[in-house]
């Protein structure tokens, strides 16, 4: 997390020191403004008060952390497997990458957003770039969420370090155990992390059990690093995530299993005297297997198997050129190949099994070139230019899939080839020691997703429609603009963002009266279409104040968003105003934190998508912790109560308005060594 007081202190120092010093501090401010970076701490406690705000405990999940970030909302269909939304953009509109690696879920019903395949214990940070700022990782209109994997730490002074954590959560009678270990030699190090999570059906605020809200999950990762020379390292990462019996109370089916295998090898080299700096080359491969399961459901008309697979391979190379005049140029070229398929077999009583391809086997192949130039216009202003060009290819590769799609009147024998153009320009002005302004605008486009293009009668519980793909979809295009203001002094910082996106060819499901439904009991069939336009805009505020020699830390965030289509109808899945406040008192090894979460009523709804007005809610949470430092170890206890008042509530983005957990008392024990 970029530190604003460091910056402020630096500004003070600017008066007496060189401008080069100021520039590095300016860099960190620009980072703070253009990138939302949430550091994750699994080994040592962060000294950053803001990190404590986002990562409420050592065992907080990736989703728990994301839910607290301004600019991020989560679409919830079950207790885990929530889909991130960046400023109103989700699914194919955003890039969700793991350490820069492209990875795609294998579930046709979005039950496995790739965020569930990582755990905070194997992450170093979660980096979020909104809108056009996120084009470094791939063409996108909504931004990029990068889950950065933690590296093994080469530190000859600390040969063997790590932590163990265990927790219990009352609402779902859930247990969580996590372990992180780092072993270091002089030239190499290896890091291991593992998490086990298991929860039963949770109790909501009415003290009723929510059926099908159980889950089980194991995640392990191994990361090794070897120092090739003073300036270069090679590292290898392997991550394995196995989920099973994951309940989705808002859907008619649960997840039988969700398995991800992620592997990469990375070479890094950085020598500030060379022409190529910060060089990073990575090759990677990952595979996701997923199967839905309806065998636990009592009211199933007929049993169905719905497995899916997604396999991705890719590589990228990035480096920065030695600074030339006012130009600091960064180049990244990347390539990936993703192949997915999913099918469905239904078993009616006394009849032959019915088999269908829900995602005919198809691939997307993308090669991209990204160039960024940061221009140091003067001591107090910078201009950033980002360009990305991408060649994308998509094709249905199996004959049955091609034949099946011909039923809808489309010929999908040939490939779809597109050139995607993304450009973004940003301007930063350091107005005074207190104020910095950051403006960013650009044109972005993205390739339609597999479901949007080739999905075949995919059931959507929310609007009770079957969805079919449309191979003729145009790219979704957006003109993005944002304004950011940062005010910072030694004790407080305030960041205000306002943003707007004008989207052309916005992709939405539209009812097709000519098509008859497939799923029993649904209201109709929708096909993805490019509607002429849509507009999203909103604002965020984040305020941090530290009082009494940092004994008392006050944090407050607001997020507000609106979305309208070309007929001025509200877009679906737009979160209402949310305000989150936390006050943390810290004295030596003891802390006590009170949090308040407010969500306003959402009446800007899309009835056609099955939305109804969501009532407002207010929640309180309390957390406390105490650490005992022993000779070589540190033992941390924490206790907390979430939803203190046992409020029965559901968020606007919770499908089916399934009530969330009621009062949840948790206790954690962490041993750090």
């Amino acid at each position, binding site marked *: 997390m970029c530190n604003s007081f460091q910056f402020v202190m630096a500004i003070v120092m600017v008066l007496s020191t060189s401008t080069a010093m100021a520039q590095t501090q300016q860099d960190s401010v620009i980072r703070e403004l253009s990138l939302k970076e949430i550091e994750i701490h699994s080994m040592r406690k962060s000294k950053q008060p803001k990190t404590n705000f986002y990562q409420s405990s050592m065992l907080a999940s990736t989703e728990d952390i994301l839910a607290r970030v301004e600019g991020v909302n989560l679409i919830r269909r079950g207790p885990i497997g929530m889909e991130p939304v960046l400023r109103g953009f989700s699914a194919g509109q955003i890039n969700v990458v793991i350490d820069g690696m492209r990875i795609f879920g294998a579930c046709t019903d979005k039950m496995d957003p790739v965020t569930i395949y990582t755990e905070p214990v194997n992450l170093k940070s979660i980096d979020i770039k909104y809108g056009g700022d996120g084009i470094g990782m791939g063409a996108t209109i909504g931004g990029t969420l990068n889950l950065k994997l933690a590296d093994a730490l080469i530190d000859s002074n600390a040969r063997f370090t790590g932590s163990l954590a265990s927790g219990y959560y009352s609402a779902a009678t859930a247990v969580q155990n996590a372990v992180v270990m780092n072993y270091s030699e002089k030239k190499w190090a290896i890091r291991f992390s593992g998490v086990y999570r298991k929860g039963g059906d949770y109790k909501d605020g009415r003290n009723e059990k929510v059926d099908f809200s159980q889950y089980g999950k194991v995640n392990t990762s191994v990361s090794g690093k070897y120092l090739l020379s003073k300036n270069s390292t090679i590292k290898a990462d392997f991550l394995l995530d196995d989920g099973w019996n994951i309940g989705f109370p808002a859907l008619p089916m649960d997840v039988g299993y969700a398995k991800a295998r992620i592997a990469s090898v990375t070479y890094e080299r950085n020598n500030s005297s060379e022409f190529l700096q910060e060089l990073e080359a990575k090759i990677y491969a990952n595979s996701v297997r997923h199967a839905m399961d309806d065998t636990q459901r009592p009211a199933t008309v007929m049993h169905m198997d719905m497995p899916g697979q997604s396999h991705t391979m890719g590589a990228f190379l990035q480096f920065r050129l030695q600074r030339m005049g006012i130009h600091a140029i960064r180049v990244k070229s990347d390539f990936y190949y993703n192949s997915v398929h999913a099918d469905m077999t239904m078993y009616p009583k006394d009849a032959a099994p019915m088999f269908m391809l829900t995602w005919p086997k198809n691939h997307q192949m993308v090669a991209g070139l990204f160039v960024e130039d940061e221009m140091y216009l003067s001591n107090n202003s910078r201009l950033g230019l980002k360009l990305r060009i991408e060649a994308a290819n998509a094709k249905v590769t199996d004959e049955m899939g091609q*034949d099946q799609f011909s039923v809808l009147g489309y010929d999908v024998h040939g490939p779809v080839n597109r050139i995607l153009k993304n450009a973004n320009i940003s301007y930063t002005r350091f107005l005074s020691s207190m104020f910095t302004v950051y403006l960013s605008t650009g044109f972005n486009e993205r390739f339609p997703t597999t479901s949007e293009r080739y999905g075949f009668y995919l059931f959507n519980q929310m609007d009770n429609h079957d969805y079919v793909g449309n191979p003729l979809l145009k790219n979704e295009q957006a003109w993005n603009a944002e304004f950011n203001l940062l005010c910072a002094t030694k004790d407080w910082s305030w960041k205000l963002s306002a943003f707007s996106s004008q989207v052309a060819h916005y992709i939405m499901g539209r009812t097709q009266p000519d098509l008859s439904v497939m799923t029993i009991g649904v209201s109709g069939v929708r096909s993805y279409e490019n509607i002429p336009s849509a507009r999203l805009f909103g604002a965020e505020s984040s305020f941090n104040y530290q009082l009494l020699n940092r004994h008392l830390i006050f944090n407050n965030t607001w997020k507000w968003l609106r979305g309208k289509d070309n007929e001025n109808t509200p877009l679906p899945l737009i979160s209402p105003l949310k305000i989150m406040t936390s006050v943390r008192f810290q004295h030596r090894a003891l802390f006590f934190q009170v949090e308040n979460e407010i969500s306003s009523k959402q009446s800007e709804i899309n009835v056609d998508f099955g939305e109804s007005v969501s009532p407002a809610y207010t929640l309180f949470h309390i957390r406390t912790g105490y650490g005992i430092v022993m000779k070589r170890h540190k033992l941390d206890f924490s206790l907390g109560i979430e939803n203190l008042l046992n409020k029965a509530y559901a968020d606007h983005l919770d499908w089916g308005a399934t009530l969330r957990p009621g009062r949840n008392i948790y206790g954690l024990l962490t041993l750090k060594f």
Partner: protein
Amino acid sequence: MKKIYAFVFLLAFLTACKKDVDNKNITDPKEGLQKISEAYAPGVSTKIELWAKSSLTTGFNQLFVALYDSVSNETITKAEVKVLPVMDMEMNGMYMSHSAPSVQPESDRAENTLFPFAAVFTMPGNTDQNKWSLEVTIKRDGQNKTGTARLAAEVGPSSPERVKMLTTAEGDKLVVAYFFPINPKIGINELEMIIYRQQDKMSFLPADNYLLTITPEMPAMGHGSPNNVNPVYTKNGYYKGKVNFTMTGDWRINLDLAKAGQKNTTFFDLTF
């Protein structure tokens, strides 16, 4: 259909030619076929063989006649061939007969030594009480005499039933059969139907003036499929259209036959 035969023939011819050069091995025109029965046609010194792709069942059957000179045993490739399916029934000592719709060979020239024709068997006939036979009448090229032979044909039931008989409001008795030129698959399938009207017990005429509407349905789920093409009349009682299947399983093709404001319905089931 003819096109397909022509194509198959051409293909056989071309490959045969090629193989001639390669290894002097001529493709057997009866490859993939099985012999159903044979008989001698008296007076024209000809042996008649009946061939089919598989054993016969109720509904549409593609059949072939092969002719041989009974003396020289040489294949006869030019002759007028007429076929009449005959069902002989015995019920409590009473004998009666009736026929079934048939599509005659199109030409007096054999296609690759075979004379293709088709018959729509309207009931099973494989017992002593119910027997199907094919009355084949031939007139060889260059001869004036005609000869007739009866070839036995065992016809089993088809499951699901591929032939339906219905009586329209005007009193017309229709025989409706469907067949796929290829095995059904997910996607677009060519659908051919054949409809004949019974004139009397022994003769059937192509019913060319019906407006057909097909509605495929999966009875287990109640859904259908989009973009089907209703079969339209071509010739010889054939109607050609397209049926789309979105998945495998049990399908029912509901069929409406409309003529002069009157509507009749039937259906065909199939599984793949």
